[in-house]
């Protein structure tokens, strides 16, 4: 695509940097209280109390795992009962065909296996992963996030997003630096 055809860069959101974890928590609290929904806080390490500050609800991952565990449990039992006592019964040292104790190890293993799959892939799904790029990577300053940078980014498609008001809010919360994040539309 030629340069002439390139559309103007679109604003993805507004990135604000804060000096330390305590300031980041305070800012997240203010942003949350102002009613923003589409925003996130970024830090080099997990910060205790961030979930409450951002008003995050309990993760739904547990329910995904539970569903998988139940599927694994009944799936394994059904598979073994069908194969070894209905479809092709084999006499193993005179034990009953429907030999529930012998089925427990496989049932246990499959319950654990599917739970683990549910946990890992459910986590991927809920984090929108795998994702090859994020507009935030367009900011040079954001590279500090793996070292000593504490950021909040409010997305432009949030209902409350307003160029001046959002900037003022982030500024009042104690931001040391504020910039726009752009998406490159020519992708």
């Amino acid at each position: 695509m030629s340069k002439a055809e390139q559309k103007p860069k679109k604003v993805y959101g507004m990135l604000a940097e804060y000096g330390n974890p305590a300031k980041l928590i305070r800012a997240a609290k203010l942003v949350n209280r102002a009613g923003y929904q589409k925003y996130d806080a970024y830090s080099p390490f997990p910060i205790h109390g961030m979930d409450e500050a951002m008003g995050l609800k309990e993760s739904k991952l547990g329910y995904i795992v539970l569903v998988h565990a139940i599927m694994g449990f009944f799936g394994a039992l059904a598979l073994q009962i069908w194969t070894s006592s209905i479809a092709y019964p084999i006499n193993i040292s005179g034990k009953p065909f429907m030999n529930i104790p012998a089925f427990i190890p496989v049932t246990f293993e499959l319950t654990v296996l599917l739970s683990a799959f549910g946990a890992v892939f459910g986590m991927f799904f809920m984090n929108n992963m795998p994702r090859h790029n994020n507009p935030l990577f367009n900011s040079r300053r954001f590279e500090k996030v793996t070292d000593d940078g504490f950021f909040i980014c409010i997305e432009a498609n949030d209902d409350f997003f307003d160029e001046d008001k959002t900037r003022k809010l982030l500024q009042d919360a104690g931001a040391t630096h504020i910039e726009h994040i752009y998406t490159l539309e020519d992708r």
Partner: protein
Amino acid sequence: MAKTKPVDDLIYPQNTGILRVLFGIGALGIFASFIGFFVDTKQFHFSYLTSFSYLASFSLASLFFVMLHHITRSSWGVTLRRIPETFSYQLFILAIMFIPILFGMEYLYKWTSPEILATDHLAQHKQPYLNQPFFIIRQIIYFSVWSFLGYRLYKNSVKMDENADWGLETLQRKISAPGILLFSLTVAFASFDWLMSLDFHWFSTMFGVYYFSMSFQAFFAMIILLGLFLRSRGLLLNTITRVHIGDAGKLMFGFTVFYAYIAFSQFFLIYYANIPEETLWYYHRLEGNWSVISYSLIIVRFAAPFLLLLSKAAKSNFTLLGISSVIIVVIHFLEMHWIVMPTLHYHGFSMHWLDISTLVGLGGLLLGFFFYQFQKHSMVPKNDPKFLESLNKH
């Protein structure tokens, strides 16, 4: 952080009422059991062994918990630690309480009888291990190891309350590291001696782990109940918080699964191999209405607490934790009964009044001693280097 000061009263209010009640109940139970001894000597010894193994399991698991806490330098449970410390201190009392079992060996253990020894090949084969003098020597070794460890760990911890000497913490670790090794061996062999040798034809190499897994699960139930009891009295409300009890709840949940894993593995290997002298033990326990207990162990001891405590919120919900803990503490006794009693009543399950009276007698005395000791010192190791960290846990 600013909130690192203990604001609670750390001394249990001097209250002789609870001691009078517990010692009174205990004495009553002992008196009833004493009468039972003359009424039905054999039943008395079996009931006594059941109650003893049941109550000893709490103190032994407490000792393990304290040593584990020291060698891993854990901080989360420092506020809870004085409770298991006091329980493990009691192990020398349990040593005294074991003496009636030594005198009742001829009633309890068939391998002591000369007639059986003369005719039974297996009894002759196992005689180098299963003979009365060696049995007594082993008990002396077990109880001296346990009493020593429990006594030292408790005394050092109490001494730290007074002189705040953090060097004692290093000493605690030095005692705990070899202690945990000695503990694992002695508990495994003690469970072989007390419970497995009741049916000396039978053997299970994982019986020691089985006894330990039962005990450790029940131990967390007990510590949760005691924590909730202290809170209901308005004690340590800001010291033993929802977080500490919630953590004990998580561990109780974990060890519920561990127990089920071990108990099932023991059953499963024997069931699948199908060798007569091994299966007979389970055969007796699936006979008559013993099978009701066998199946209820799966449902009540594993499935019920597992499902009740599965969600994250449930693990720090005091009502659900309390219910599951009571279930576990009760079923733990029933399982001990289920291990011991089929040797005597192999036709079916029945509760004898001596089971209750020995349990109430020994349990009342031990709990009485617990509260007597608990009142003497601070209820938490207040000068422990990790105490503030534990207080700040959230």
